[in-house]
């Protein structure tokens, strides 16, 4: 059934921003599952051990794969070797950027900051601007016109998702921004969420990025080979496949414009290797509801709140199937969302301030599914 809804403007500088504020969806109070304070305090406890261990495994494995890839250079074996290097560069790069950005991965603040800066560069995300973009994503998760981190709109733009397999949409946008920052300017979107006090820092970080990238370029020219760039810079493009596969499971296919993370965020069970790469961000509903809980405690947090949440997707493959099916349906009917039943032990869904009827009305005109 075709939707009668008009195509919405997802930019955060457009009319939907004001509309979200008028509807009480901006900086609003979100639903949280009931967990005793004492237990929350245990779950929120910070530790250095797990993150130091995981960081050593990550960089150690990168060095080993880097050496193997070097030895295969000039043969066909270089393709799988660099693909493995790129995936191990970009995927934990993304999740370490994320967790260290929250400041919860390590107990010691400077360790979070060092890994945050390194990982931000590795995934080509300007450290300070993305800190603020991500803060907004948590304030207004998937609120149209407010959240700058919505991967694709409804109806979905397949071109963007497919280009992101090789970071070819976000990467060039970010490079343009880095050039602007080097020149001491922000783009229009960034002016929405980066406070004036953070702008000088943004510009200096971009100048450091630019120096490193120019160094890589010079090394390529000197060696008459792209090999140096295969280690730094290019992996954020050719290693992006797992980043996007994990990323699209977080929110796509679920509700927009609601104030309950159980409605707009997906938790997916993953195997230990994926969980290492993703730093447990597959427990995404838990993370959004309680961003204070470090990655290593998210499985325990999941146990504490699963009685109040829809069932987790049983695997990455199942989650991807659900997302891709929903996106295909949203192409025809942008109002389509995956409706997930709550267990009997759960409190009811909280759609948002004075908008339950509206969301239900939208759902009733759509071909909704129960997963």
């Amino acid at each position, binding site marked *: 059934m075709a939707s009668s809804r008009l195509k919405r403007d997802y930019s955060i500088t457009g009319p939907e921003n004001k509309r979200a504020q008028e509807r009480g969806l901006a*900086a609003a109070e979100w639903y949280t599952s009931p967990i005793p*304070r004492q237990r929350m*305090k245990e779950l*929120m406890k910070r530790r250095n051990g797990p993150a130091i261990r995981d960081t050593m495994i990550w960089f150690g494995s990168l060095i080993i794969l880097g050496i193997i890839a070097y030895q295969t250079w000039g043969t066909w074996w270089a393709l799988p070797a660099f693909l493995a290097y790129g995936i191990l560069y970009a995927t934990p790069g993304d999740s370490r950027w994320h967790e260290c950005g929250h*400041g919860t991965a390590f107990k010691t*603040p400077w360790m979070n900051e060092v890994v945050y800066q390194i990982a931000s560069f590795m995934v080509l995300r300007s450290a300070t601007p993305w*800190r603020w973009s991500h803060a907004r994503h948590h*304030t207004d998760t998937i609120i149209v016109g407010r959240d700058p981190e919505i991967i694709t709109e409804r109806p979905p733009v397949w071109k963007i998702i497919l280009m992101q397999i090789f970071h070819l949409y976000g990467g060039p946008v970010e490079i343009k921004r880095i050039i602007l920052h080097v020149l001491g300017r922000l783009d229009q979107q960034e002016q929405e969420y980066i406070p004036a006090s*953070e702008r000088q820092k943004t510009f200096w970080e971009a100048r450091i990025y630019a120096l490193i990238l120019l160094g890589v370029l010079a090394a390529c020219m000197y060696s008459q080979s792209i090999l140096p760039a295969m280690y730094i810079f290019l992996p954020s493009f050719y290693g992006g496949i797992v980043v996007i596969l994990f990323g699209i499971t977080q929110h796509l296919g679920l509700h927009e414009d609601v104030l309950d993370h159980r409605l707009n965020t997906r938790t997916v069970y993953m195997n230990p290797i994926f969980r290492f790469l993703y730093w447990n961000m597959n427990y995404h509903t838990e993370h959004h509801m309680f961003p*204070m809980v470090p990655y290593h405690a998210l499985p325990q947090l999941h146990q504490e709140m699963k009685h109040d949440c829809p069932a987790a997707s049983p695997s990455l493959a199942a989650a991807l199937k659900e997302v891709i099916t929903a996106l295909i349906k949203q192409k025809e009917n942008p109002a389509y969302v995956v409706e997930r039943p709550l267990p009997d032990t759960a409190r009811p869904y909280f759609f948002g301030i004075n908008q339950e009827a509206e969301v239900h009305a939208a759902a009733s005109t759509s071909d909704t599914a129960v997963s």
Partner: protein
Amino acid sequence: MTAKSWIEACAAEEIDVEDVIRFDFEDRTFAIYRTEDNMYYATDGFCTHERVHLATGLVMGNIIECPKHNGRFNIPTGAAKRRPACEALQTYPVKVEEGKVFIQIEEGSQT
């Protein structure tokens, strides 16, 4: 000059070591802390970044971490220590007498 008064907030034992509780008085909200060295402090109850109750946050030493975006503040001084929290929290004098925590506030001011 604005008049200041001592207001009884809670029993001292109501707050665990390294913890924070919320205290509402008239139309104002405060956060009252007991740090690991057994000192009591009080600040505004809401984060200065967005309007989120600090009482559901985490006390680590002399630091309170906000539950929403992990912004941090120094509890004794109120100074913002980690972005996205940039603005300091208002702090209030605290005294403990006969097992009760009192905070001193200016009458009529808004929190």
